[in-house]
């Protein structure tokens, strides 16, 4: 019951947190140089039409007034309209956010699948080829830019080998998209039992997911390795050894103790990648949320930028809440 109260309180706190985030990002976005009216009407527009548009969009009002207006709309679930897509920002984001979440969720799953076992193995074996491989891998993954790896993968698997579909979006243009349920093309095709859509969307997903997975396995590997090394050298593992518990049992206990830090690094990476995967999104023409926001910044299209900030803040807050609940499950010392 105290757990439910805790969740309730956390969700209640989301409101002031969101307010603060909107406040800061609103003024920051307003600082971006560039006049939306000029962008929208082009360089040949007359002064009069520019003034009219500014008036209509509320840019002549004072900043606090504009903020109040914006907040008023946000409360009603209206994040404004993007002048580039001429669609409501909420609608745009509901289309694009699932694309980003699909990409980074699968990417991080792959990263965990690579980084975690490798980190555990490297921590157990002080020398030998596995340890050496892990060391080099961590170094390489940290040094390589993700968009560059993406281009290399495209060059090898699309240009040279032609194994993968062209890096253009999430599904072949000739294939009909499955009805949206979860927002993930792959899962939706699976749910619809549409094999053409499944194989096409899966094919499109492989290279970007491989890119994000290979790069982000680096930090996960490093974190797992250092935490496991500390755990394996800790007093309770030594004591478990002295008690003659079987090796695999001791290892399982050590992994269990190392899990919270892995959860932490994964959640940090997740929050970061919502916006941080944008270069990979651009390389693969993924049509994700990060791409949408960057276009907004470049074209002084303010509403998409703010909308993106609000959306990713909500997603991050949900993720951190989930992490805290995971901590509860993993570590009895936090349940006080």
């Amino acid at each position: 019951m105290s757990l439910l109260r805790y969740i309730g309180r956390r969700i209640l706190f989301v409101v002031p947190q969101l307010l603060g985030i909107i406040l800061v990002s609103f003024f920051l976005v307003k600082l971006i140089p560039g006049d939306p009216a000029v962008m929208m009407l082009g360089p040949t527009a007359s002064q009069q039409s520019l003034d009219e548009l500014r008036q209509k969009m509320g840019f002549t009002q004072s900043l606090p007034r504009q903020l109040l207006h914006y907040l008023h709309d946000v409360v009603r679930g209206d994040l404004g309209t993007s002048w580039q897509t001429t669609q409501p920002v909420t609608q745009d984001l509901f289309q694009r956010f699932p694309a980003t979440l699909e990409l980074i969720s699968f990417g991080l799953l792959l990263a965990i699948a690579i980084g975690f076992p490798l980190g555990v193995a490297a921590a157990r074996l002080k020398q030998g080829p596995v340890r050496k491989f892990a060391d080099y891998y961590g170094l390489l993954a940290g040094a390589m830019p993700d968009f560059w790896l993406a281009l290399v993968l495209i060059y090898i698997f699309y240009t040279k080998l032609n194994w993968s579909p062209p890096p253009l979006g999430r599904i072949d243009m000739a294939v009909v998209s499955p009805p949206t349920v979860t927002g993930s093309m792959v899962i939706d095709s699976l749910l619809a039992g549409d094999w053409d859509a499944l194989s096409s969307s899966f094919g499109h997903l492989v290279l970007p997911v491989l890119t994000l997975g290979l790069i982000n396995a680096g930090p996960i590997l490093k974190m797992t390795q250092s935490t496991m090394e500390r755990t394996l050298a800790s007093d309770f593992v030594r004591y478990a050894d002295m008690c003659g518990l079987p090796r695999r049992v001791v290892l399982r206990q050590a992994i269990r103790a190392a899990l919270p830090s892995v959860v932490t690094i994964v959640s940090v990476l997740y929050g970061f990648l919502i916006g941080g995967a944008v270069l990979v999104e651009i390389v693969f023409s993924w049509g994700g949320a990060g791409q949408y926001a960057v276009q907004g910044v470049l074209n002084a299209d303010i509403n998409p930028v703010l909308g993106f900030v609000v959306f990713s803040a909500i997603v991050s807050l949900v993720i951190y809440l989930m992490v805290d609940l995971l901590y509860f499950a993993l570590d009895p010392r936090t349940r006080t």
Partner: protein
Amino acid sequence: MNAAPPVLDVANLWVGYPSYRSETVHALRGINLQVAAGEIVGLVGESGSGKTTLARAVMGLVPEPGAIERGQVLFAGRNLAALDDAARRAVLGRELVMVIPNPRAELNPVLTAGRQISNVVLHHLGVGRREADRIALDMLRAVRIPDPERRFAAYPHELSGGMAQRVVIAIALVCSPRLVISDDATSGLDVTVQSQVLELLQTMVREKGAAALFITRDLAITAHFCTRIAVIYAGEIVEIATTRSFFRRPRHPYSIMLLAAFSHNPALRARWTRSQDAAGDAAVAGCSFAARCVRCRPLCLTEPPSLRAEAADHAVRCHFPVDTAA
């Protein structure tokens, strides 16, 4: 002593830690020690004297990068250091157990106390989880922990130091071991709790018919709980005797210095304590205690003494054993 073969037989054990720039540091230098069934032997020494290295060597787990250089340890006739990992794990926690100090840090923080006892039962006695849990709970009752059902489900951070120590004793004794090693196990506890825990440990060791090696810095503890006492200094046993003989007539100047440290008589303390600043580094060739010895003579600086029997139940490593009844 008993005619039966000893549970623990340490024979001329040398353990060294290779050092990066200088010579290998010898933590143990020719230790000979036997512990027979039913015996409680106290091993007394200051920090750095090699007590913990000895405990680890007995378990066949000399901490890296240390290594046994000479001699061997036989536990019930077996050399644990020569066993493979799985075979050693079958002995540790089952026949040869360790009672550790500071248990709140050494128990697994994410498992309940009961689960940690029952894990040991499960893996060593080959019973199912339910039976293991039952045995574990019985054991918690046997170590007289208050409210055992609740403590069974408690995590280590929810236990007091004394209760955690009882849990560790329960883990140690639940499989009815043949030898219990206690490494400074009660040093972190309040004095009143300490004596309760020690008495409990002594009773349980007797009840289970086990032998025990009590490693401690506190001579006073050994007086009440041990049948024999060995004093270790700089990796060597300098005096070994039955408790009775030791406290009646301590022979080694170091033992007397340790005893005098408890004395209320400042003159006695001063008489047996030599300032370490005054000591040189000259003792390398001779007796390892020479630099701190108030009775040091020229011979002590050149010739290392050997462990000589002064009586049937009393041996001392000194050229000039003290001859006055203390």
